[in-house]
């Protein structure tokens, strides 16, 4: 099977800041692929390079089989992009936005009108088609963004943090929309997000990005399965790095202890049993505990393990 996206050793520096530090990944055709990482990890820079908006200092990338540097025009014809910022023209109507987008992709006349109408209906915007986008709600604008990215039937769709800034209800609606696109249109989708839940739900495969590099990859299930046992998270009343290590490291069954300021993460085979032991050991050293939680492994734990610090 061919790859929709291939990125190899991408490096990008902005002055002193190394935004991408040899980032590589590939996305098979027809897959929803998630690029997961906190803000500033390099996700958006990656999308900008893959969509021909900016150039990598080194490394190569191919999208839909075309090199982004030597054949950007072919890449632009093959992709649809929903950027972090909306990018719709607020002073135009929904229909006008779709028509302009179609026109620059070479669609015209009846074909364009039919395509625009179809998309407006599909995204529940038919009633608002003649209204200025300025009057749309955030969710409606986002749906129009996606409709515009699809007007020329692209092979590869980029969704750069598509649900950032949306309220939970609209976010859930967007997730259903993205799932439908992947299922019905057979699109290859690159989704960047800093919401673990979003990556977990939508992406068939993930690359976890940290400081401009891919630190882990695989399906969400596989990544979580690599972690044995439950996750224990304790918030202390105050930061106490050395004392925490001294208190907990001798305990049997406590693994992968990570202390980050006043919060500490560890893994244990049976979380419920480990909690009293952990609390006892901490209190014996005079360390006050503010809260404690035990949970099944999540992508946050995956991130913690590979990046050495908590996600948020």
């Amino acid at each position: 099977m061919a790859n929709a996206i291939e990125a190899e050793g991408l490096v990008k520096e902005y002055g002193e800041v190394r935004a991408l530090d040899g980032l590589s990944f590939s996305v098979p055709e027809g897959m929803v692929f998630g690029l997961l990482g906190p803000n500033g990890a390099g996700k958006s820079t990656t999308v900008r390079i893959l969509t021909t908006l900016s150039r990598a200092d080194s490394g190569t990338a191919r999208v839909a089989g075309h090199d982004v540097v030597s054949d950007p025009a072919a890449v632009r014809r093959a992709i649809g992009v929903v950027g972090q910022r909306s990018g719709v023209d607020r002073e135009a109507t929904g229909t006008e936005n779709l028509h302009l987008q179609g026109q620059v992709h070479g669609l015209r006349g009846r074909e364009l009108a039919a395509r625009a109408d179809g998309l407006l209906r599909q995204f529940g915007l038919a009633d608002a088609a003649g209204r200025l986008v300025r009057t749309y709600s955030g969710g409606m604008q986002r749906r129009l963004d996606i409709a515009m990215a699809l007007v020329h039937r692209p092979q590869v769709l980029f969704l750069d943090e598509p649900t950032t800034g949306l309220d939970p209800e609209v976010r859930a609606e967007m997730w259903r929309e993205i799932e439908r696109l992947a299922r019905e249109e057979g699109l290859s989708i690159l989704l960047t997000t800093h919401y673990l839940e979003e990556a977990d739900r939508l992406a068939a495969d993930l690359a976890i990005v940290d400081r401009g590099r891919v630190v882990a990859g695989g399906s969400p299930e596989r990544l979580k399965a690599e972690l044995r046992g439950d996750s224990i998270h304790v918030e202390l009343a105050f930061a106490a790095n050395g004392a925490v290590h001294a208190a907990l490291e001798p305990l049997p069954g406590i693994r992968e202890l990570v202390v980050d300021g006043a919060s500490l993460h560890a893994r244990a085979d049976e979380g419920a049993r480990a909690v009293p032991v952990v609390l006892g050991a901490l209190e014996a050293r005079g360390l006050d505990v503010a809260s404690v939680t035990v949970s099944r492994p999540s992508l946050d734990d995956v991130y913690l393990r590979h990046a050495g610090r908590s996600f948020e």
Partner: protein
Amino acid sequence: MTVLRHVGYMAMRDLRALWRQPWYIAVTLVQPVIWLLLFGELFKSVADLPGFSGSYIAYLAPGIVVMSALFSSGWSGMGTIEDIDRGVTDRLLVSPVRRSALIAGRVAQGAVVIVVQSVIMVGLALAVGASFPGGVLGVVVLVLVAALLGSAFGALSNSLALVTRQEESLIGAVTFLVLPLTFLSTALMRDDLLPGWMRTVADVNPVDWAIEAGRSAVGANPDWGLVVGNVALLTALLLACGALATTAFRSYQRSV
């Protein structure tokens, strides 16, 4: 061909947005009218000075037409800044739209506005008693030079917008340029009545090239050598400003 079509799409988008702002249209039309009537009254007795013949308003009208073109095109870059801020530019850049059409479309939209504005002002000047012996051809030349100058200045405004990327900086730069450019010209006062140094400045002032050519063309005895020469100069200026805008656009693309 594709480039022209894309320029058309971009210009249409801007014109449509403009059309939806009736207050803005009203102000851009009323302002030159006020200039014309206000200056026409204020400097009425200038026409009594030796060297003037005919009414001052007939003398003034071509100057105000060109000045209004300069004023309105100065703000052309504002839309570019807004598009960058709102992500519209990025969305267009990831599409196959011709890069040159993004700025050229906006400049073309400005030219359309200038043509409409100029024709209305010529009509108004006629209504308040000015006469243009140069006839329709003369008026066409006047509108053409106004559009050429406005387009060049619009391209310059877009270049500044792409470099500063701040509305405040653009407003400052444009305000800094337009008034001196207007007053260091023969818009309000005959060439031979200007102080010597001002005449020298006016000779290299593109605003004056446009005014001299337009005024000559609508006058009784057009100096076609001067008209053609100045149209050529303004065309060269437009090409130079277009090249500058293209460079500014490339540097913007590299910086993001």
